[in-house]
């Protein structure tokens, strides 16, 4: 009898793990004063307390959309979370309140679904992997108002984007060529700042805008760039051992939050150790 119960318990645990694995985190975001937002494969968002990891809310998934990216920002003293996705060749970014209520929707051109926010200017920077163009969308305008910021001629398929508020630049990874670009949003000029990065899949930046974190899907490493003389330089790489690394964002107390499509982890930058947490 005990054996049967044990088998059932093991089977149920296996099933739970399989279910969790099939809907793992693909993108994460946190900033000081906000919650930890975890975008799952099925498009829903888990809102967690960044310290206790207690689930505070769930934002339901959008219908018929492949989820791609998540960012949160404080605009006019109110916390918002932005989630992007695409279907076919169309893309969009949805804006929610921190409580998960839909607030606005922004159509994006040419499957553009990687993005970040300039909270000061209320701009959404998005990048299209199809055209390799960086666009800016005014968050105060409804509908589609994408304005072209830069065209990355050498890029094969641009991927993750992060806005560096310290220098007013957009940092952009090329998933096709494994390179990193630094784009001046004022005049659209850009320069390649790193190469041989495997497949850049996610970018994070510290609160002082002096350290950049890049997750490499191909090798499972997190490349760390430090700002030196006004430009980010590759400083070190932390191998996480995660097979399908998909998300990186800064966490509290010298940590990073990382995700690999199966689990969510907190990585200590001091000890380089990963600790898994539930989402």
């Amino acid at each position: 009898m005990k054996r049967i119960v044990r088998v059932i318990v093991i089977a149920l645990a296996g099933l739970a793990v399989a279910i969790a694995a099939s809907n793992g985190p693909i993108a994460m975001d946190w900033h000081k004063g906000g919650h930890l937002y975890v975008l799952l494969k099925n498009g829903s968002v888990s809102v967690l307390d960044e310290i206790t990891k207690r689930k505070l809310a769930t934002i339901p998934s959008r219908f018929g959309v492949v989820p791609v990216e998540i960012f949160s920002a404080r605009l006019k003293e109110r916390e918002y979370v932005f989630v992007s996705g695409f279907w076919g060749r169309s893309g969009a970014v949805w804006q929610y309140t921190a409580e998960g209520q839909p607030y606005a929707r922004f159509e994006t051109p040419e499957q553009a679904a990687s993005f970040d926010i300039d909270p000061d200017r209320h701009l959404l920077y998005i990048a299209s992997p199809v055209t390799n163009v960086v666009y800016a969308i005014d968050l105060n305008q409804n509908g589609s108002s994408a304005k072209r910021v830069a065209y990355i001629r050498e890029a094969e398929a641009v991927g993750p984007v992060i806005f560096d508020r310290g220098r007013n630049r957009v940092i952009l990874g090329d998933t096709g060529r494994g390179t990193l670009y630094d784009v001046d949003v004022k005049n659209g000029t850009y320069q390649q700042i790193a190469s041989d990065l495997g497949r850049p899949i996610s970018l994070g930046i510290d609160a002082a805008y002096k350290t950049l974190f890049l997750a490499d899907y191909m090798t499972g490493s997190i490349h760390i760039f430090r700002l030196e003389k006004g430009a980010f330089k590759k400083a070190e790489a932390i191998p996480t051992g995660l097979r399908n690394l998909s998300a990186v964002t800064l966490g509290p107390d010298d940590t990073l939050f990382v995700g690999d499509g199966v689990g969510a982890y907190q990585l200590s930058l001091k000890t380089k150790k990963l600790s898994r947490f539930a989402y």
Partner: protein
Amino acid sequence: MSRDFGGHGVQVVGGSNPPCPTKKPFLLMSRLLALTASLFLLTRAAAVERVLVFDDVKKTDLQANFQSDCVATQPPANFQKLQRVPTKTNAFFLYFDPTLIEPARFGKFFDYTFYIAVAGANPPVWYSCGTQVYTQGAFLDRSETAHFTVRIGDAVDDGALDVPLHSIASRDFIEIASVTKPAKVDLSQAAGIELSLHSLLPDQDLLVEPSVQATASHPGYWVSTSDVKLHDAASKDVIRIHPGDTSLVRLQLEPKKLPTLLATLGSVKPDAAHETVTAVISYRSDLGGVLRTKPVNIVVRFVPSLISLIVALFAGSLLGTLAAQFLPGTWKGFKPMAHRAARGIVFSFVAELFAMFLVALGSKFVILQFDLDPWQFLPVFFIGFAVSGGKEVLSYIGLVKQQKAEAENA
């Protein structure tokens, strides 16, 4: 393209620690070792880069480009289950699991995984080749033959395999229509709206998600328009449609009986619409196609239940009989009225059956120049009223006179 293939466990530290003078020989040795390791890695990277090379697929409507990066690996656990393609001289085997194809996280290209095995090698020599496939053109997702070359050391061999190719272009792979136009929604049962889904794909299955986003022009007519699903008798999960096939499914929308019955009173013509439902259906091609959506506008006509029609017929018939009794000089007592009412009901019933039969055969049922639908509440009520009330009542309210006058004018 050169990449850091030896990424696992590699840690590049750039000048964070100042050099210690007391450990100079050790440092020199470390640097020498690091340089040797780097050269080894670079050589290895350069070598593995050429392990698998696909020729571009070039067709009138389709271009595909493959970029493979291979690393030495252990044989995959399930390699016996993978699709196996030998090269021309059987020097290598290419293994492929098409079910692992998936669109890249940010879109544009697709990720494929191929494995290369050296034939007869002991210990086994395997390579895992992550491949980015870029497609262009106005094609619908289909399979094409791709020619590849394998080069390991001095051995070179080539072969070809059929690979599913997927498009990111905005073309529909599916045609959706209601089986009847307008779509008939039977109010007597919660059967929903019958739709036909036709796959346009030439050689790949189409997978339709059962969840549907539905919006109605009159949401009050429906129990709920959220969490609407497509029901396919053949499957409970994803609806699989084979290439070129058509599948009949039901959009499970449940009408509210009274509001929809009242909605039918507004229009009596056989082809008139009572409601418009917009359903957004999401689908993708099998073996890793991009998720797509297709909205379809469905014009709906509610069909009252048989009981509603019987009630309408009885009510119309009784009203017609009663109206006839109020005409001057018609009243002859309750018994004759009851007889007349019974006779009226029988004749109304016969007329309704006759009308249903005619319309079912494709004919029109016209009374007083009105093209009536004998399946709707108001026309059935009118049939009962007209048959039971008789010519006197119709004449009294002016309908017959008008017809006569019009006939004379003609």
